[in-house]
């Protein structure tokens, strides 16, 4: 899961940093902003652990993960796919998708 989110965060960081770099020409500034937006990740995790975990049972955790799975599937379809198509490089998009699916399937089997 962490791997999947990490991989998906790479283009996100790119999306954040690219316009700022293009506008300011400051690499440090662009990188810093991407870094800070990435830091919200552990903040979300901390909130989850502190406030939601006390109410968790194993079944509720699994159902929560199913909920997250629904969200992630929706993100793929609603957000990432259209954004990818807009790049007008469908072959590259398809190659990336295959690679990503292969990586993930491999980790599901072997890890």
């Amino acid at each position, binding site marked *: 899961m962490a791997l999947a*989110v990490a*991989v998906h965060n*790479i283009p996100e960081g790119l999306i954040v940093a690219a316009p700022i770099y293009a506008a300011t020409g400051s690499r440090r500034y662009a990188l810093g902003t991407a870094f800070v937006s990435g830091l919200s990740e552990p903040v*979300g995790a901390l909130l989850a652990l502190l406030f939601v975990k006390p109410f968790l049972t194993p079944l509720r955790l699994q159902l929560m993960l199913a909920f997250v799975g629904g969200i992630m599937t929706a993100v793929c379809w609603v957000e990432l796919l259209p954004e990818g198509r807009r790049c007008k490089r469908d072959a590259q998009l398809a190659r990336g*998708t295959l690679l990503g699916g292969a990586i993930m399937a491999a980790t599901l089997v072997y890890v």
Partner: protein
Amino acid sequence: MEDAAAPWRVTQLLGPAELKALAWSTLAGLATTLGGLLAIIKRPEAGLLAFLLGTAIGVMATLSVLELIVQNARENGVWEVALCAGAGGLAYVLMEPLLPHFEVPVRGEGGPGGGGASGALSAEAEVLPAAEPAGRVTRRSEALRIAEAKPPSAAESAASAAAVVETARKDNLLRLGFLMAVTMTLHNLPEGFAVAFASLTEGDFGPVRARIL
């Protein structure tokens, strides 16, 4: 005494499993910096961006469908899991229009009207003025479009339209970047949730994975 007690309480709340969850989510968050690094080393070119987005799609779709939904349904009941997954998807779809929208100004233009990509998927594409040289100009955000004083008339050439965007861009890129950062931050919070919860169950996944595949 109070000061000394506070950190102690925090460590009581966060056992090894929780710290592991936090570590994982921090690592995942740091990947954002990696993307930022990529952006400043090499400006995002359409092909690379498409490839990265594709990788993200492949990874996320595989993970969520196989592991979070299918395997989960086999273990915990098809209906409950289907309901939760559906609720999650629906929640996102309903929430998504409320989030600010941007597109990345990528360098390097796509082929004019390249293939079926033109507007087949995105509703936004239909909203764009018809005069817009299809997919020619780098992606344009709502903000850029508004900032543009006059919409390109049909008579204007693609080049001049691009020039208008070019001048408008610099002023808006910074704002775009920060709005993007805010959006991503909002997106990342629930992701942090997900990583943390997944990490808590990590130990149970191994044998189940073998079974499903």
